[in-house]
């Protein structure tokens, strides 16, 4: 007997972001429209729900910080554009917060499926809370997947972007809990000779494979 197991395909870190053509609250947008800038593509389960509303307010609060970093925001849920428009108007009326970024109305789940946003053990009809950090070359650089119950942390999303942009600018890695201004990690040597030389190169080293520097 053949057993069919349904799996959720996910984009791969370091791989191209899946292309899309999508109806949004700011017109029809494609992935290519965002080429040349960083993009935070995120999903939420449903409009007019409590945790999602707090997240939208929180995303709006980091919008200016993201713009300073050359990062655009794009939301998605499996709702109609009419629902999105009504919800954004409701958020502004009830909280005074204007949501400045577009939201994909993915009723046919095409984008949600391409990005692995539907996890049937959470819901068959709603996306889970995903975040995709996509770089200017449209490569997926980081992914977060959170459950329906738990709102995301904006500080971590901004920190993650700072870390990735620092990595790209200086060809370095960033340690656990790294914040801008902290020392960064020098790429480890890949040869025995390199390991031998590393400790004489002036870095702050715990050992040959773990060295830090300021940038």
């Amino acid at each position, binding site marked *: 007997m053949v057993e069919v197991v349904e799996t959720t395909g996910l984009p791969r870190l370091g791989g191209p972001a899946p292309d899309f053509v999508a109806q949004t609250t700011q*017109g029809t947008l*494609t992935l290519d429209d965002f080429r040349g800038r960083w993009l935070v593509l995120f999903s939420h389960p449903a409009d007019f729900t409590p945790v999602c509303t707090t997240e939208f307010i929180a995303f709006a609060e980091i919008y200016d910080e993201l713009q300073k970093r050359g990062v655009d925001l794009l939301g998605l849920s499996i709702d109609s554009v009419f629902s999105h428009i009504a919800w954004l108007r409701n958020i502004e009326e009830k909280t005074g917060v204007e949501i400045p970024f577009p939201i994909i109305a993915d009723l046919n789940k095409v984008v949600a499926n391409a990005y692995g946003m539907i996890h049937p053990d959470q819901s068959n009809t709603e996306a889970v809370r995903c975040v995709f950090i996509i770089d200017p070359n449209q490569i997926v650089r980081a992914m977060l997947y959170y459950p329906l119950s738990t709102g995301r942390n904006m500080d971590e999303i901004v920190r993650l972007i700072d870390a990735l942009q620092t990595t790209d600018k200086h060809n370095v890695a960033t340690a656990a809990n790294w914040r801008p201004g902290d020392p960064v990690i020098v790429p480890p040597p890949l040869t025995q000779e390199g390991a031998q030389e590393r400790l004489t190169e002036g870095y702050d080293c715990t050992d040959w494979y773990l060295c830090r520097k300021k940038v």
Partner: protein
Amino acid sequence: MLSALEEGPGSPEEVAEKTGMSLFRVRSGLRELSYAGLVEVTGERYELTEKGAESLRDAQ
């Protein structure tokens, strides 16, 4: 966006700079204007068509 092309062809980046709009909105908007026959694109540069120039005159 049509006004931004009044003086001559431009790239989406140039139109974004002139209008202050996000680059993604400009790319999306120019695409829609192209479908409507108001602009035409050669490579990465957009310019007003006659219909686009007429629409702009009517709007001003």
